[in-house]
Protein backbone atom coordinates (compact mmCIF):
# COMPACT_ATOMS: atom_id res chain seq x y z
CA UNK A 1 0.00 0.00 0.00
CA UNK A 2 2.99 2.40 0.04
CA UNK A 3 2.29 5.40 -2.12
CA UNK A 4 4.83 5.59 -4.87
CA UNK A 5 6.56 8.79 -5.73
CA UNK A 6 4.74 9.25 -8.98
CA UNK A 7 4.68 12.93 -9.77
CA UNK A 8 2.57 13.71 -12.78
CA UNK A 9 3.69 16.83 -14.58
CA UNK A 10 2.02 19.96 -13.29
CA UNK A 11 -0.41 21.86 -15.43
CA UNK A 12 -0.87 19.04 -17.86
CA UNK A 13 -3.38 20.32 -20.32
CA UNK A 14 -2.97 17.47 -22.75
CA UNK A 15 -5.79 15.09 -23.27
CA UNK A 16 -5.85 11.31 -23.16
CA UNK A 17 -3.45 8.94 -24.83
CA UNK A 18 -1.00 11.60 -26.01
CA UNK A 19 0.57 11.40 -22.57
CA UNK A 20 1.05 7.65 -22.54
CA UNK A 21 4.78 7.81 -21.89
CA UNK A 22 4.40 9.18 -18.36
CA UNK A 23 3.97 6.79 -15.43
CA UNK A 24 0.35 6.24 -14.35
CA UNK A 25 -0.92 8.52 -11.60
CA UNK A 26 -3.08 5.71 -10.27
CA UNK A 27 -2.48 2.05 -10.87
CA UNK A 28 -4.42 -1.03 -9.74
CA UNK A 29 -2.73 -4.36 -10.17
CA UNK A 30 -4.49 -7.62 -9.41
CA UNK A 31 -6.73 -6.02 -6.82
CA UNK A 32 -9.23 -8.33 -5.12
CA UNK A 33 -11.49 -7.56 -2.22
CA UNK A 34 -13.25 -9.97 0.09
CA UNK A 35 -15.06 -8.34 3.00
CA UNK A 36 -15.00 -9.92 6.47
CA UNK A 37 -18.59 -11.10 5.98
CA UNK A 38 -17.45 -13.14 2.99
CA UNK A 39 -18.76 -10.80 0.27
CA UNK A 40 -16.47 -11.12 -2.71
CA UNK A 41 -16.56 -7.58 -4.07
CA UNK A 42 -13.68 -7.38 -6.52
CA UNK A 43 -11.72 -9.94 -8.40
CA UNK A 44 -8.25 -9.50 -9.93
CA UNK A 45 -8.79 -5.99 -11.22
CA UNK A 46 -5.94 -4.22 -12.97
CA UNK A 47 -5.87 -0.92 -14.80
CA UNK A 48 -4.02 2.40 -14.83
CA UNK A 49 -5.18 5.99 -14.92
CA UNK A 50 -2.73 8.60 -16.22
CA UNK A 51 -2.70 12.35 -15.84
CA UNK A 52 -5.03 13.82 -18.43
CA UNK A 53 -7.06 10.64 -18.55
CA UNK A 54 -10.66 10.51 -17.34
CA UNK A 55 -11.69 6.93 -16.70
CA UNK A 56 -15.26 6.05 -15.79
CA UNK A 57 -16.27 2.72 -14.34
CA UNK A 58 -19.81 1.49 -14.97
CA UNK A 59 -21.30 -1.74 -13.72
CA UNK A 60 -24.23 -3.31 -11.94
CA UNK A 61 -24.98 -2.33 -8.33
CA UNK A 62 -22.76 -4.03 -5.82
CA UNK A 63 -20.02 -4.90 -8.32
CA UNK A 64 -17.41 -3.23 -6.15
CA UNK A 65 -17.07 0.02 -8.09
CA UNK A 66 -17.09 2.16 -4.98
CA UNK A 67 -14.77 -0.30 -3.29
CA UNK A 68 -12.22 0.45 -6.02
CA UNK A 69 -12.21 4.10 -4.97
CA UNK A 70 -12.06 3.27 -1.27
CA UNK A 71 -9.03 1.09 -1.95
CA UNK A 72 -7.41 3.76 -4.13
CA UNK A 73 -7.84 6.36 -1.39
CA UNK A 74 -6.60 4.09 1.36
CA UNK A 75 -9.94 4.00 3.21
CA UNK A 76 -10.03 0.23 2.65
CA UNK A 77 -7.18 -2.19 2.20
CA UNK A 78 -7.30 -4.62 -0.71
CA UNK A 79 -7.37 -8.30 0.27
CA UNK A 80 -4.82 -9.04 -2.42
CA UNK A 81 -3.12 -6.96 -5.09
CA UNK A 82 -1.57 -3.51 -4.91
CA UNK A 83 -2.49 0.06 -5.65
CA UNK A 84 0.08 2.71 -6.32
CA UNK A 85 -0.90 6.33 -6.06
CA UNK A 86 0.42 9.52 -4.53
CA UNK A 87 -2.18 10.38 -1.90
CA UNK A 88 -0.85 13.82 -1.04
CA UNK A 89 -2.82 15.33 -3.92
CA UNK A 90 -5.91 13.18 -3.87
CA UNK A 91 -9.40 14.54 -4.48
CA UNK A 92 -12.34 12.41 -3.44
CA UNK A 93 -15.97 13.34 -3.95
CA UNK A 94 -18.41 11.04 -2.21
CA UNK A 95 -21.95 10.05 -3.13
CA UNK A 96 -23.22 12.42 -0.44
CA UNK A 97 -21.80 15.92 -0.10
CA UNK A 98 -20.75 15.03 3.51
CA UNK A 99 -20.41 18.71 4.41
CA UNK A 100 -19.99 19.55 8.08
CA UNK A 101 -23.35 21.11 8.98
CA UNK A 102 -21.85 23.48 11.55
CA UNK A 103 -19.43 25.05 9.09
CA UNK A 104 -20.35 27.54 6.41
CA UNK A 105 -19.32 26.99 2.79
CA UNK A 106 -16.01 28.80 3.19
CA UNK A 107 -14.93 26.79 6.22
CA UNK A 108 -16.18 23.53 4.72
CA UNK A 109 -14.10 24.10 1.62
CA UNK A 110 -11.09 24.88 3.79
CA UNK A 111 -11.46 21.62 5.72
CA UNK A 112 -9.19 19.31 3.72
CA UNK A 113 -6.43 21.90 3.56
CA UNK A 114 -6.89 22.51 7.27
CA UNK A 115 -6.47 18.80 8.05
CA UNK A 116 -3.42 18.81 5.80
CA UNK A 117 -1.89 21.57 7.93
CA UNK A 118 -1.96 24.30 5.30
CA UNK A 119 -1.52 27.70 7.01
CA UNK A 120 -4.66 29.78 7.53
CA UNK A 121 -3.96 32.54 5.00
CA UNK A 122 -2.91 30.09 2.32
CA UNK A 123 -5.98 27.87 2.69
CA UNK A 124 -8.27 30.89 2.72
CA UNK A 125 -6.88 31.97 -0.64
CA UNK A 126 -7.18 28.47 -2.08
CA UNK A 127 -10.72 28.06 -0.78
CA UNK A 128 -11.81 31.38 -2.23
CA UNK A 129 -10.43 30.35 -5.59
CA UNK A 130 -12.11 26.92 -5.46
CA UNK A 131 -15.45 28.43 -4.42
CA UNK A 132 -15.30 30.77 -7.38
CA UNK A 133 -14.42 27.92 -9.74
CA UNK A 134 -17.49 25.89 -8.80
CA UNK A 135 -19.74 28.94 -9.06
CA UNK A 136 -20.54 29.39 -5.38
CA UNK A 137 -19.15 32.91 -5.04
CA UNK A 138 -21.46 34.92 -2.81
CA UNK A 139 -22.47 31.84 -0.81
CA UNK A 140 -19.34 31.62 1.37
CA UNK A 141 -21.26 32.38 4.53
CA UNK A 142 -24.21 30.08 3.94
CA UNK A 143 -24.62 26.89 5.92
CA UNK A 144 -25.28 23.53 4.24
CA UNK A 145 -28.93 23.49 5.33
CA UNK A 146 -29.45 26.73 3.41
CA UNK A 147 -28.18 25.24 0.14
CA UNK A 148 -29.88 23.14 -2.53
CA UNK A 149 -28.64 19.63 -3.30
CA UNK A 150 -26.72 20.79 -6.36
CA UNK A 151 -25.04 23.60 -4.48
CA UNK A 152 -23.98 21.24 -1.71
CA UNK A 153 -22.37 19.02 -4.31
CA UNK A 154 -20.52 22.03 -5.71
CA UNK A 155 -19.21 22.84 -2.23
CA UNK A 156 -18.09 19.25 -1.93
CA UNK A 157 -16.25 19.53 -5.26
CA UNK A 158 -14.57 22.74 -4.14
CA UNK A 159 -13.45 21.09 -0.91
CA UNK A 160 -11.44 18.56 -2.94
CA UNK A 161 -10.09 21.22 -5.28
CA UNK A 162 -8.17 23.03 -2.52
CA UNK A 163 -5.74 20.12 -2.41
CA UNK A 164 -4.93 20.70 -6.08
CA UNK A 165 -5.72 17.05 -6.90
CA UNK A 166 -3.51 15.11 -9.27
CA UNK A 167 -5.81 12.15 -8.85
CA UNK A 168 -9.51 12.85 -8.57
CA UNK A 169 -11.94 10.16 -7.44
CA UNK A 170 -15.69 10.61 -7.96
CA UNK A 171 -18.06 8.12 -6.36
CA UNK A 172 -21.43 8.54 -8.13
CA UNK A 173 -21.45 12.16 -7.03
CA UNK A 174 -24.46 13.31 -9.04
CA UNK A 175 -26.78 10.36 -8.48
CA UNK A 176 -29.09 12.33 -6.20
CA UNK A 177 -29.50 15.56 -8.20
CA UNK A 178 -32.01 16.20 -10.96
CA UNK A 179 -31.15 15.66 -14.62
CA UNK A 180 -30.53 19.30 -15.54
CA UNK A 181 -28.38 19.99 -12.50
CA UNK A 182 -26.46 16.82 -13.27
CA UNK A 183 -25.72 18.04 -16.79
CA UNK A 184 -24.52 21.38 -15.51
CA UNK A 185 -22.31 19.70 -12.94
CA UNK A 186 -20.93 17.43 -15.68
CA UNK A 187 -19.94 20.51 -17.64
CA UNK A 188 -18.15 21.84 -14.60
CA UNK A 189 -16.28 18.60 -13.99
CA UNK A 190 -15.09 18.73 -17.59
CA UNK A 191 -13.89 22.30 -17.33
CA UNK A 192 -12.07 21.47 -14.09
CA UNK A 193 -10.55 18.45 -15.81
CA UNK A 194 -9.40 20.56 -18.73
CA UNK A 195 -8.05 23.21 -16.43
CA UNK A 196 -6.17 20.94 -13.98
CA UNK A 197 -5.38 17.91 -16.13
CA UNK A 198 -5.78 15.50 -13.22
CA UNK A 199 -6.15 11.76 -13.54
CA UNK A 200 -9.90 11.22 -13.09
CA UNK A 201 -11.62 8.07 -11.91
CA UNK A 202 -15.39 8.37 -11.96
CA UNK A 203 -18.10 5.92 -10.88
CA UNK A 204 -21.62 6.17 -12.22
CA UNK A 205 -24.74 4.22 -13.13
CA UNK A 206 -25.48 6.52 -16.03
CA UNK A 207 -24.06 5.47 -19.39
CA UNK A 208 -24.63 8.87 -20.96
CA UNK A 209 -22.85 10.59 -18.08
CA UNK A 210 -19.96 8.15 -18.53
CA UNK A 211 -19.66 8.74 -22.26
CA UNK A 212 -20.03 12.49 -21.92
CA UNK A 213 -17.28 12.85 -19.33
CA UNK A 214 -14.67 10.26 -20.08
CA UNK A 215 -11.69 9.47 -22.24
CA UNK A 216 -12.11 5.82 -21.38
CA UNK A 217 -14.89 3.64 -19.98
CA UNK A 218 -14.43 0.41 -18.08
CA UNK A 219 -17.39 -1.97 -17.74
CA UNK A 220 -17.44 -4.26 -14.75
CA UNK A 221 -19.36 -7.47 -14.17
CA UNK A 222 -21.73 -8.28 -11.33
CA UNK A 223 -20.18 -9.40 -8.04
CA UNK A 224 -17.39 -10.28 -7.81
CA UNK A 225 -16.57 -7.35 -10.05
CA UNK A 226 -14.04 -7.80 -12.79
CA UNK A 227 -13.40 -5.91 -16.01
CA UNK A 228 -15.52 -7.15 -18.90
CA UNK A 229 -15.33 -4.20 -21.25
CA UNK A 230 -12.92 -1.37 -22.01
CA UNK A 231 -13.88 1.45 -24.36
CA UNK A 232 -11.98 4.46 -25.59
CA UNK A 233 -14.12 7.55 -26.04
CA UNK A 234 -13.01 9.35 -29.20
CA UNK A 235 -14.61 12.77 -28.65
CA UNK A 236 -12.37 15.76 -28.08
CA UNK A 237 -12.71 18.38 -25.36
CA UNK A 238 -14.36 20.78 -24.77
CA UNK A 239 -17.53 18.78 -25.18
CA UNK A 240 -20.73 20.53 -26.14
CA UNK A 241 -23.98 19.50 -24.45
CA UNK A 242 -25.23 18.77 -27.96
CA UNK A 243 -22.78 15.90 -28.12
CA UNK A 244 -25.37 13.90 -26.20
CA UNK A 245 -27.57 13.90 -29.31
CA UNK A 246 -24.79 12.94 -31.70
CA UNK A 247 -25.05 9.66 -33.62
CA UNK A 248 -21.56 8.56 -32.61
CA UNK A 249 -22.44 9.27 -28.98
CA UNK A 250 -25.56 7.10 -29.27
CA UNK A 251 -23.65 4.32 -30.95
CA UNK A 252 -20.98 4.18 -28.25
CA UNK A 253 -23.65 4.35 -25.54
CA UNK A 254 -25.36 1.42 -27.23
CA UNK A 255 -22.17 -0.67 -27.23
CA UNK A 256 -21.57 0.04 -23.56
CA UNK A 257 -25.17 -0.73 -22.72
CA UNK A 258 -24.76 -4.03 -24.54
CA UNK A 259 -21.60 -4.85 -22.61
CA UNK A 260 -23.41 -3.95 -19.36
CA UNK A 261 -26.31 -6.28 -20.15
CA UNK A 262 -23.78 -9.04 -20.70
CA UNK A 263 -22.22 -8.11 -17.36
CA UNK A 264 -25.55 -8.54 -15.58
CA UNK A 265 -26.15 -12.10 -16.75
Amino acid at each position, binding site marked *: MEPTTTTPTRNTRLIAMSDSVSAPALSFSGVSMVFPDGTHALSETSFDVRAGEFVTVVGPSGCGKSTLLRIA*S*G*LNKATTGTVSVDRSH*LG*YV*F*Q*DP*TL*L*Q*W*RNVQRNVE*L*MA*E*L*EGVPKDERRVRATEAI*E*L*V*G*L*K*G*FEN*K*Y*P*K*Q*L*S*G*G*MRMRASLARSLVLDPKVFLFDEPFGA*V*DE*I*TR*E*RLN*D*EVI*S*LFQRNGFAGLFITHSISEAVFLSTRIIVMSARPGRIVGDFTVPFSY*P*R*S*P*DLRFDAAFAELSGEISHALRGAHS
Partner: protein
Amino acid sequence: MSDGVGTSMTSAEHATDHLDVALEHYSVADIEAVQPHAASARTAEWSRLVGPLVIFVLFVAAWHYMHTDGMRRFFDKPGFLLPAPETVLHDSFLKPLARASLLNGLKWTTLVALLGLAMTIVIGVSIAVTMSQAKWVERSTYPYLVALQAIPILSVVPIINSVFGGGINSRLFVCVVISIFPIVTNTLFGLTSADAGQHDLFTLRGASRWTRLVKLQLPSAMPAIFTGFRISAGLSVIGAVVGEQFFRKGSKPGIGIVMEQYRQKNLYAQTYGGLLLAALLGIVVFLVFGRVSKLVVGHWHESSRKPD
Protein backbone atom coordinates in the same frame (compact mmCIF):
# COMPACT_ATOMS: atom_id res chain seq x y z
CA MET B 1 -35.28 22.13 -4.62
CA SER B 2 -34.18 25.61 -5.63
CA ASP B 3 -31.89 24.50 -8.43
CA GLY B 4 -34.83 24.71 -10.79
CA VAL B 5 -34.98 28.49 -10.60
CA GLY B 6 -31.95 29.17 -12.69
CA THR B 7 -32.16 26.20 -15.00
CA SER B 8 -34.42 27.29 -17.85
CA MET B 9 -32.06 30.16 -18.42
CA THR B 10 -29.01 27.94 -18.40
CA SER B 11 -30.22 25.31 -20.79
CA ALA B 12 -30.70 28.11 -23.29
CA GLU B 13 -27.17 29.26 -22.68
CA HIS B 14 -25.86 25.74 -23.01
CA ALA B 15 -26.27 25.89 -26.74
CA THR B 16 -24.20 29.04 -27.13
CA ASP B 17 -21.43 28.94 -24.60
CA HIS B 18 -21.20 25.80 -22.53
CA LEU B 19 -17.76 26.52 -21.15
CA ASP B 20 -18.91 29.48 -19.18
CA VAL B 21 -21.25 27.32 -17.14
CA ALA B 22 -18.55 26.74 -14.58
CA LEU B 23 -18.38 30.44 -13.86
CA GLU B 24 -22.10 30.95 -13.50
CA HIS B 25 -23.42 31.93 -10.13
CA TYR B 26 -26.71 31.22 -8.46
CA SER B 27 -28.99 34.14 -7.85
CA VAL B 28 -29.83 35.15 -4.31
CA ALA B 29 -33.46 34.16 -5.02
CA ASP B 30 -32.32 30.54 -4.94
CA ILE B 31 -31.65 30.85 -1.27
CA GLU B 32 -34.57 32.98 -0.23
CA ALA B 33 -36.98 30.23 -1.25
CA VAL B 34 -35.80 28.32 1.81
CA GLN B 35 -36.94 30.98 4.30
CA PRO B 36 -40.24 30.32 6.14
CA HIS B 37 -43.38 32.08 4.99
CA ALA B 38 -44.44 35.31 6.72
CA ALA B 39 -48.17 34.44 7.11
CA SER B 40 -47.53 31.15 8.85
CA ALA B 41 -45.09 32.94 11.14
CA ARG B 42 -47.90 35.26 12.27
CA THR B 43 -50.17 32.29 13.04
CA ALA B 44 -47.35 30.75 15.04
CA GLU B 45 -47.00 34.01 16.98
CA TRP B 46 -50.69 33.84 17.92
CA SER B 47 -50.72 30.25 19.05
CA ARG B 48 -47.55 30.88 20.99
CA LEU B 49 -49.45 33.39 23.14
CA VAL B 50 -52.96 31.99 23.27
CA GLY B 51 -52.14 28.34 24.01
CA PRO B 52 -50.06 28.97 27.14
CA LEU B 53 -52.56 31.56 28.37
CA VAL B 54 -55.50 29.14 28.12
CA ILE B 55 -53.58 26.38 29.86
CA PHE B 56 -52.49 28.81 32.59
CA VAL B 57 -56.07 29.89 33.31
CA LEU B 58 -57.20 26.26 33.41
CA PHE B 59 -54.33 25.39 35.73
CA VAL B 60 -55.14 28.17 38.21
CA ALA B 61 -58.86 27.33 38.05
CA ALA B 62 -58.19 23.64 38.74
CA TRP B 63 -55.92 24.59 41.63
CA HIS B 64 -58.60 26.84 43.06
CA TYR B 65 -61.22 24.15 42.70
CA MET B 66 -59.01 21.61 44.47
CA HIS B 67 -58.72 24.01 47.40
CA THR B 68 -62.41 24.87 47.75
CA ASP B 69 -63.96 21.51 46.95
CA GLY B 70 -61.65 18.99 45.26
CA MET B 71 -59.48 17.94 48.16
CA ARG B 72 -62.51 16.98 50.21
CA ARG B 73 -64.46 15.43 47.35
CA PHE B 74 -61.68 13.31 45.85
CA PHE B 75 -59.36 12.61 48.74
CA ASP B 76 -61.55 13.30 51.77
CA LYS B 77 -58.90 15.68 53.08
CA PRO B 78 -59.21 19.27 54.34
CA GLY B 79 -58.71 22.09 51.84
CA PHE B 80 -55.98 23.80 53.85
CA LEU B 81 -53.54 21.10 52.70
CA LEU B 82 -53.66 22.88 49.35
CA PRO B 83 -54.15 26.61 49.99
CA ALA B 84 -55.76 28.68 47.25
CA PRO B 85 -53.36 30.25 44.74
CA GLU B 86 -54.05 33.79 45.92
CA THR B 87 -53.40 32.75 49.54
CA VAL B 88 -50.08 31.21 48.50
CA LEU B 89 -49.06 34.36 46.66
CA HIS B 90 -50.20 36.65 49.45
CA ASP B 91 -48.67 34.76 52.38
CA SER B 92 -45.41 33.94 50.62
CA PHE B 93 -44.57 36.99 48.61
CA LEU B 94 -46.50 39.94 50.03
CA LYS B 95 -45.51 39.38 53.64
CA PRO B 96 -42.00 40.81 53.97
CA LEU B 97 -40.70 38.25 56.46
CA ALA B 98 -41.80 35.21 54.45
CA ARG B 99 -40.63 36.79 51.22
CA ALA B 100 -37.19 37.54 52.59
CA SER B 101 -36.66 34.05 53.94
CA LEU B 102 -37.96 32.37 50.75
CA LEU B 103 -35.86 34.54 48.45
CA ASN B 104 -32.82 33.97 50.61
CA GLY B 105 -33.48 30.22 50.35
CA LEU B 106 -33.84 30.53 46.60
CA LYS B 107 -30.48 32.25 46.42
CA TRP B 108 -28.65 29.38 48.13
CA THR B 109 -30.54 26.73 46.21
CA THR B 110 -29.69 28.47 42.94
CA LEU B 111 -26.06 28.56 43.95
CA VAL B 112 -25.97 24.86 44.81
CA ALA B 113 -27.94 23.88 41.71
CA LEU B 114 -25.69 25.85 39.37
CA LEU B 115 -22.51 24.73 41.07
CA GLY B 116 -23.77 21.14 40.96
CA LEU B 117 -24.72 21.53 37.32
CA ALA B 118 -21.30 22.91 36.44
CA MET B 119 -19.65 19.94 38.14
CA THR B 120 -22.06 17.56 36.43
CA ILE B 121 -21.29 19.07 33.03
CA VAL B 122 -17.53 18.83 33.47
CA ILE B 123 -17.61 15.31 34.90
CA GLY B 124 -20.37 14.07 32.59
CA VAL B 125 -18.83 15.34 29.36
CA SER B 126 -15.42 13.98 30.40
CA ILE B 127 -16.91 10.56 31.09
CA ALA B 128 -18.73 10.59 27.74
CA VAL B 129 -15.62 11.64 25.83
CA THR B 130 -13.64 8.86 27.49
CA MET B 131 -16.35 6.33 26.75
CA SER B 132 -16.51 7.39 23.10
CA GLN B 133 -12.83 6.67 22.54
CA ALA B 134 -13.20 2.91 22.50
CA LYS B 135 -16.09 0.52 22.33
CA TRP B 136 -14.66 -1.57 25.17
CA VAL B 137 -14.51 1.41 27.51
CA GLU B 138 -18.13 2.18 26.75
CA ARG B 139 -19.20 -1.43 27.20
CA SER B 140 -17.39 -1.85 30.51
CA THR B 141 -18.46 1.44 32.12
CA TYR B 142 -22.05 1.75 30.94
CA PRO B 143 -23.50 -0.72 33.49
CA TYR B 144 -22.14 1.42 36.33
CA LEU B 145 -23.84 4.49 34.94
CA VAL B 146 -27.13 2.65 34.76
CA ALA B 147 -26.58 1.40 38.31
CA LEU B 148 -25.84 4.97 39.46
CA GLN B 149 -29.12 6.00 37.91
CA ALA B 150 -30.93 3.23 39.79
CA ILE B 151 -29.53 4.05 43.25
CA PRO B 152 -32.32 5.21 45.57
CA ILE B 153 -30.47 8.26 46.80
CA LEU B 154 -32.49 8.42 50.03
CA SER B 155 -31.21 5.06 51.17
CA VAL B 156 -27.59 6.19 51.07
CA VAL B 157 -28.16 9.50 52.87
CA PRO B 158 -26.41 8.30 56.07
CA ILE B 159 -23.35 7.24 54.07
CA ILE B 160 -23.21 10.51 52.14
CA ASN B 161 -23.60 12.29 55.46
CA SER B 162 -20.64 10.55 57.04
CA VAL B 163 -18.42 11.01 53.99
CA PHE B 164 -19.23 14.57 52.93
CA GLY B 165 -20.66 15.96 56.14
CA GLY B 166 -23.99 17.69 56.52
CA GLY B 167 -23.15 20.84 54.58
CA ILE B 168 -22.97 22.01 51.02
CA ASN B 169 -20.66 19.23 49.81
CA SER B 170 -23.28 16.58 50.40
CA ARG B 171 -25.87 18.64 48.53
CA LEU B 172 -23.52 19.01 45.59
CA PHE B 173 -22.89 15.27 45.62
CA VAL B 174 -26.63 14.56 45.48
CA CYS B 175 -26.97 17.09 42.64
CA VAL B 176 -24.30 15.39 40.58
CA VAL B 177 -25.58 11.86 41.19
CA ILE B 178 -29.14 12.81 40.29
CA SER B 179 -28.33 14.84 37.18
CA ILE B 180 -25.32 13.22 35.54
CA PHE B 181 -26.97 10.41 33.59
CA PRO B 182 -28.69 12.49 30.85
CA ILE B 183 -25.51 14.44 30.18
CA VAL B 184 -23.40 11.34 29.74
CA THR B 185 -25.91 9.50 27.55
CA ASN B 186 -26.75 12.49 25.36
CA THR B 187 -23.12 13.51 24.92
CA LEU B 188 -22.13 9.94 24.13
CA PHE B 189 -24.94 9.63 21.63
CA GLY B 190 -23.87 12.90 20.03
CA LEU B 191 -20.20 11.96 19.85
CA THR B 192 -20.98 8.71 18.06
CA SER B 193 -23.54 10.19 15.69
CA ALA B 194 -21.25 11.88 13.13
CA ASP B 195 -21.88 10.06 9.87
CA ALA B 196 -19.50 7.55 8.37
CA GLY B 197 -18.83 9.71 5.32
CA GLN B 198 -17.66 12.60 7.49
CA HIS B 199 -15.40 10.22 9.38
CA ASP B 200 -14.00 9.05 6.02
CA LEU B 201 -12.99 12.62 5.22
CA PHE B 202 -10.89 12.77 8.37
CA THR B 203 -9.48 9.29 7.73
CA LEU B 204 -8.44 10.33 4.22
CA ARG B 205 -6.14 13.00 5.59
CA GLY B 206 -4.91 10.83 8.45
CA ALA B 207 -6.44 13.01 11.15
CA SER B 208 -5.44 12.26 14.74
CA ARG B 209 -7.90 11.09 17.37
CA TRP B 210 -7.74 14.55 18.94
CA THR B 211 -8.42 16.39 15.66
CA ARG B 212 -11.33 14.08 14.99
CA LEU B 213 -12.74 14.72 18.46
CA VAL B 214 -12.37 18.49 18.32
CA LYS B 215 -13.25 19.16 14.69
CA LEU B 216 -15.81 16.45 14.02
CA GLN B 217 -17.26 14.64 17.01
CA LEU B 218 -17.71 17.48 19.51
CA PRO B 219 -19.24 19.97 17.05
CA SER B 220 -21.62 17.39 15.65
CA ALA B 221 -22.55 16.41 19.21
CA MET B 222 -23.46 19.96 20.27
CA PRO B 223 -27.24 19.69 19.72
CA ALA B 224 -27.38 16.43 21.69
CA ILE B 225 -25.10 17.82 24.39
CA PHE B 226 -27.38 20.81 24.86
CA THR B 227 -30.39 18.52 25.13
CA GLY B 228 -28.50 16.74 27.91
CA PHE B 229 -27.72 20.08 29.60
CA ARG B 230 -31.38 21.06 29.58
CA ILE B 231 -32.57 17.83 31.14
CA SER B 232 -29.77 17.79 33.68
CA ALA B 233 -30.34 21.42 34.62
CA GLY B 234 -33.88 20.58 35.76
CA LEU B 235 -32.63 17.52 37.63
CA SER B 236 -29.90 19.55 39.27
CA VAL B 237 -32.50 21.88 40.79
CA ILE B 238 -34.38 18.84 42.08
CA GLY B 239 -31.11 17.46 43.43
CA ALA B 240 -30.35 20.70 45.23
CA VAL B 241 -33.80 20.85 46.86
CA VAL B 242 -33.80 17.15 47.77
CA GLY B 243 -30.30 17.48 49.19
CA GLU B 244 -31.45 20.30 51.43
CA GLN B 245 -34.13 18.13 52.96
CA PHE B 246 -31.43 15.93 54.43
CA PHE B 247 -28.33 18.02 54.82
CA ARG B 248 -29.08 21.15 56.78
CA LYS B 249 -25.82 22.02 58.48
CA GLY B 250 -24.16 25.33 57.87
CA SER B 251 -25.54 28.80 57.49
CA LYS B 252 -26.91 28.31 53.98
CA PRO B 253 -30.59 27.46 54.30
CA GLY B 254 -31.78 26.71 50.77
CA ILE B 255 -35.36 26.77 49.60
CA GLY B 256 -35.81 23.09 50.55
CA ILE B 257 -34.84 23.84 54.15
CA VAL B 258 -37.08 26.88 54.33
CA MET B 259 -39.98 24.84 52.94
CA GLU B 260 -39.40 22.09 55.47
CA GLN B 261 -39.38 24.64 58.29
CA TYR B 262 -42.71 26.10 57.14
CA ARG B 263 -44.21 22.64 56.74
CA GLN B 264 -43.27 21.73 60.29
CA LYS B 265 -45.11 24.84 61.47
CA ASN B 266 -48.10 23.87 59.32
CA LEU B 267 -47.67 27.03 57.25
CA TYR B 268 -48.78 25.41 54.02
CA ALA B 269 -49.16 28.57 51.99
CA GLN B 270 -45.48 29.44 52.45
CA THR B 271 -44.48 25.84 51.77
CA TYR B 272 -46.22 26.00 48.40
CA GLY B 273 -44.65 29.40 47.83
CA GLY B 274 -41.27 27.74 48.15
CA LEU B 275 -42.37 25.01 45.80
CA LEU B 276 -43.38 27.63 43.24
CA LEU B 277 -39.98 29.28 43.50
CA ALA B 278 -38.17 25.96 43.08
CA ALA B 279 -40.29 25.16 40.01
CA LEU B 280 -39.67 28.64 38.65
CA LEU B 281 -35.94 28.14 39.08
CA GLY B 282 -36.17 24.89 37.11
CA ILE B 283 -38.08 26.62 34.32
CA VAL B 284 -35.66 29.55 34.15
CA VAL B 285 -32.62 27.26 33.99
CA PHE B 286 -34.36 25.19 31.29
CA LEU B 287 -35.18 28.29 29.24
CA VAL B 288 -31.71 29.74 29.59
CA PHE B 289 -30.17 26.54 28.25
CA GLY B 290 -32.68 26.48 25.43
CA ARG B 291 -31.65 30.01 24.49
CA VAL B 292 -27.94 29.27 24.73
CA SER B 293 -28.44 26.14 22.64
CA LYS B 294 -30.17 28.20 19.94
CA LEU B 295 -27.35 30.71 19.96
CA VAL B 296 -24.69 28.03 19.64
CA VAL B 297 -26.22 25.56 17.18
CA GLY B 298 -29.35 27.30 15.91
CA HIS B 299 -27.67 28.65 12.80
CA TRP B 300 -26.83 25.22 11.46
CA HIS B 301 -28.95 22.61 13.23
CA GLU B 302 -32.28 21.67 11.67
CA SER B 303 -34.35 21.09 14.79
CA SER B 304 -33.62 24.31 16.65
CA ARG B 305 -35.21 27.23 14.90
CA LYS B 306 -33.51 30.59 14.64
CA PRO B 307 -34.49 33.10 17.29
CA ASP B 308 -36.22 35.83 15.31
